[in-house]
Each structure stands twice: as structure tokens, then as C-alpha cells.
């Protein structure tokens, strides 16, 4: 049986800031603007966590150092980590701050893989100025991630296939990858707290309760995960959201930000070879009211103009109050593969031109950075927001991996 390694960069953004400035080591560090994007383990001792507002964070931990952060720098540090990991195995699947590596066939090369993993931790700390990583090694992706969670931060743990069942059986059911927050709460309501409880539910019951994901949970509760490492995990959704620097009802600003976020979300979906069936829009008013809507067009699409048309309609439906907005977000979900969608018999030559246009735009942005091209409808953001090579610097960028 093969083995999979899961590597997670501990408190990623905050660790990078501590590496850049040694005066921050041992101090509570927060990276974020408006909300916490990442916080150091010293900050977590005060109950701080990602997603918490900075107002609340300051109340809980007044001595915390708060930094805006820099996405381009974090990507550069992550690249250094992935380059080191690639020396262990070339078969990788990397995300923002975590990666999976297939160790199958490398046993004779590395000898004791746990020792090699500890050496890798030291090498990564050396090339990054002290950033720590946690490594879990197990017979499959799901178990590797779960094992790593038990030894954070800076730990290494290897789980043998023979011990997998004993490890898994008493773990919280909500920790099983694929359960998520919503399903986790539903399971709690059903008095299903551990994997042992989850196993008692037959496949039919899980399918009736959770739909397609029920079968997945049935498998994972038994420690089975047949995904290969190099296969891209299809996300449940891809969202791009931000708060405005100040509340706004300006249709030009709102339109520009919405189109910019939709472009980012569509590009992320295309990079994964996916197009969404469902397109959603989220708005938060200045008085705290939150509205969300979604629409399923006749055919799945990841083309910017088609997604814009859907969000135009959603905005008209959702933005009905004379109150300014503080937050806007685009959510793409229910994905299908780019090449697996049903063809539109009535599609015209213009669709092909639109595809070629986005392919060309993506190629330029892949090479020169997202900021190298700004679409016409996002032009009003130029001069209003700072830019780096990854695009506009948003107040509270929030993105799925």
C-alpha cells in the first residue's frame, strides 16, 4: 500500500512575518485588515482565530502586533516550501498553505520516511528563515491530513495502515474531510459526535440525509479515500469577497468591485479546469443586514461576461434598500469539468471567440501577474486601490483555497 504525505505551513502568514522580523518571534502577531486572515500561535492563546474581526481581536489581545500582510510575499515563501517538498516527491498537489505528496515508490530512496520528514522540516526552516511546518504521513490523503492535525504545530507523525482504524474511530465526526460546518452541526443534532457514531449510520440513511456527499462520508468514516494525490480536489465552492474601505452605494464602485471579484473567481475556476453551474452574490449592508442570492444559468459557464450577466441580475434583485454596502462577494459552486459540460447546440462562433479571449487573458496574467491587465468594467478601481502584481490590494480579501 502506498503512502501520502500532508504538509501544512503553521500559522502561515503570521509565521512569514515572524521570519522577516525576528522581533516578532514569541509575540502575538495578526495578519489581516478588518478581519484576521492569519494569527500566530501566541495570538491563538488569547482565543484569536482566522475570520475574527480586528475590533474583537484588539479587545482580547491589546498587545498583538497587527500587520496588513503581503500576498505576493506569502506566495514566494510558499514556493520555497514546495520546492523543498518536491525534492522528496515530484507528485504534488499544492494549495495556498498546504500540500499533499505521493510517497509511493520512494521507500528505498528515503529509508525511514518519518526521519526524512523531520529533516525536511529543518531544511524548510533554513530556507524560509524559521517558518515551521507540520507533516502527517498515512496510507491516504484524508488520513494524512487528520494525522497532521493531531501534532500541530511543527510536528511529524506517521500512521501505519494497521493503526488507521484505531486512530480514526474516536475522532470527532466533524473533523472528517467533507463534513464541513453545516453538515457538522446537522450530525451533532443527530447525536453523531464521533466517527464511531458516524459508522453506525447506514449508507442509505447518510445518502437520504446528505445527498451525494452521504456516500463519501460513508467511505471516509471507514478511513477509505481513493483520491490520487495528483488529482485536483474539486472544491465545493470558490468565493472571492471583500469589505469596502468605506461603506458605499456608488453604483460605479460597486459595479467595478463586483466585476473584479467575479473575474478573480472565474480565473480560479478555469485554472482548476472547472465551470460552475451556480453563481451567487453576497452583500452586507452598513446596518449589518446580510443578503445572499444565487442563480443557475441554463449552461455551466466560467466565462467572465456570462458570469457578469448573472451577477448583474442578482444585484438588481438583492440590492433593494437605500442603505450603503460594506461587503460584496461572488460565490461559484456546483462545478463541472470544463470539457465535460453539455454542448449548446445553438452556440454561435462568438462563444469560441470569447473562450479564446479569456484563454489569452489568463495566459498573460499567469505570466505577468493578474494586475498586468485590468478589464474595462474594473477600471474605476485604478487609482482608488493600491495594486501589486497579484491585483488590487483589497481591504479584507477572503478567498477559498
Amino acid at each position, binding site marked *: 500500500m502506498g503512502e501520502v504525505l500532508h504538509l501544512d505551513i503553521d500559522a502561515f502568514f503570521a509565521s512569514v512575518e515572524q521570519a522577516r522580523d525576528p522581533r516578532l518571534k514569541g509575540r502575538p502577531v495578526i495578519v489581516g485588515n478588518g478581519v484576521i486572515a492569519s494569527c500566530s500561535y501566541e495570538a491563538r492563546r488569547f482565543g484569536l482565530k482566522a475570520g475574527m474581526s480586528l475590533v474583537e481581536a484588539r479587545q482580547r489581545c491589546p498587545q498583538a502586533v497587527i500587520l496588513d500582510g503581503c500576498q505576493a510575499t506569502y506566495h*514566494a515563501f510558499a514556493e520555497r516550501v514546495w520546492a523543498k517538498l518536491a525534492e522528496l516527491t515530484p507528485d504534488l498537489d499544492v494549495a495556498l498553505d498546504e500540500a499533499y505528496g505521493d510517497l509511493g515508490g520512494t521507500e528505498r530512496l528515503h529509508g525511514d520516511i518519518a526521519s526524512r520528514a523531520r529533516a525536511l522540516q529543518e531544511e524548510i526552516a533554513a530556507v524560509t528563515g524559521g517558518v515551521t511546518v507540520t507533516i502527517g504521513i498515512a496510507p491516504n490523503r484524508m488520513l494524512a491530513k487528520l494525522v497532521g492535525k493531531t501534532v500541530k504545530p511543527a510536528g511529524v507523525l506517521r500512521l501505519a495502515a494497521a493503526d488507521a482504524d484505531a486512530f480514526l474511530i474516536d475522532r470527532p465526526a466533524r473533523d472528517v474531510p467533507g463534513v464541513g460546518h453545516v453538515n457538522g452541526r446537522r450530525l451533532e443534532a443527530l447525536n453523531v459526535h464521533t466517527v464511531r457514531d458516524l459508522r453506525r449510520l447506514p449508507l442509505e440513511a447518510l445518502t437520504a440525509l446528505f445527498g451525494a456527499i452521504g456516500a463519501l462520508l460513508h467511505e471516509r468514516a471507514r478511513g477509505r479515500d481513493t483520491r490520487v494525490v495528483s488529482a485536483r480536489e474539486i472544491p465545493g465552492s470558490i468565493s472571492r469577497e471583500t469589505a469596502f474601505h468605506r461603506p458605499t452605494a456608488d453604483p460605479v464602485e460597486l459595479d467595478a468591485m463586483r466585476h473584479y471579484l467575479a473575474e478573480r473567481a472565474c480565473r480560479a475556476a478555469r485554472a482548476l479546469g472547472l465551470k460552475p453551474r451556480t453563481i451567487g452574490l453576497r452583500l452586507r449592508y452598513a446596518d449589518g443586514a446580510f443578503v445572499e442570492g444565487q442563480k443557475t444559468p441554463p449552461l455551466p459557464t466560467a466565462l467572465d461576461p456570462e458570469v457578469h450577466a448573472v451577477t448583474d441580475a442578482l444585484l438588481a434583485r438583492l440590492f433593494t434598500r437605500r442603505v450603503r454596502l460594506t461587503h460584496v462577494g461572488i460565490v461559484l459552486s456546483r462545478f463541472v469539468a470544463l470539457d465535460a459540460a453539455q454542448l449548446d447546440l445553438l452556440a454561435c462562433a462568438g462563444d469560441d471567440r470569447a473562450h479564446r479571449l479569456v484563454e489569452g487573458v489568463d495566459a498573460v496574467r499567469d505570466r505577468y501577474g493578474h494586475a498586468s491587465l485590468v478589464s474595462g468594467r474594473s477600471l474605476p478601481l485604478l487609482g482608488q486601490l493600491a495594486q501589486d502584481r497579484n491585483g488590487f490590494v483589497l481591504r479584507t480579501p477572503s478567498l477559498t483555497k
Partner: protein
Amino acid sequence: MRVEKLDEPVRVRADFAGGQATPVVFRRGTQSLKIARVNARWEDRVGQKPLYYFACSVDSGDVYELCLNAHELTWRLTSVMLDG
């Protein structure tokens, strides 16, 4: 702790031993700042042009971020992190 974003050309004396650049001292205005420690280094690129970044502590403890454009062989001071 506060970070000041900068984009200033600076003169840097660097060591290129071992095939990698390591800044040693740089001049900001009339002030010559000796680098006590390179805390971290990373690479970014614009198109095919590599940019090498260095987070450097000087004797006062402040951390300066220097960027070497390897294509143009120019250095820029991109930020400084000050205590207080």
C-alpha cells in the same frame, strides 16, 4: 510596530559568494546602514525578470526590505518595519 512602504532606489554593497547575493551595507540618504543579519530571502518575478527580496535587520534592530532586480542589476528599498 509599524511598516512603512517605500520604493526608493538605494546603493547597496553586496556579497555574491556562493552564487547568491547577500546585501552587506546600504546607504539611505547620508546614512550608511550596516546589515547585521539577513532574516529571510525570497524570490518573485515580473514576467521573466526575477526580483530577489531580502528582509534585513540593521544594528538598531529595525528591519529593512531590499529588492534586487537581477535583470537591471538595481536595488530598491521597499519597506521598513519600525518598533513603536
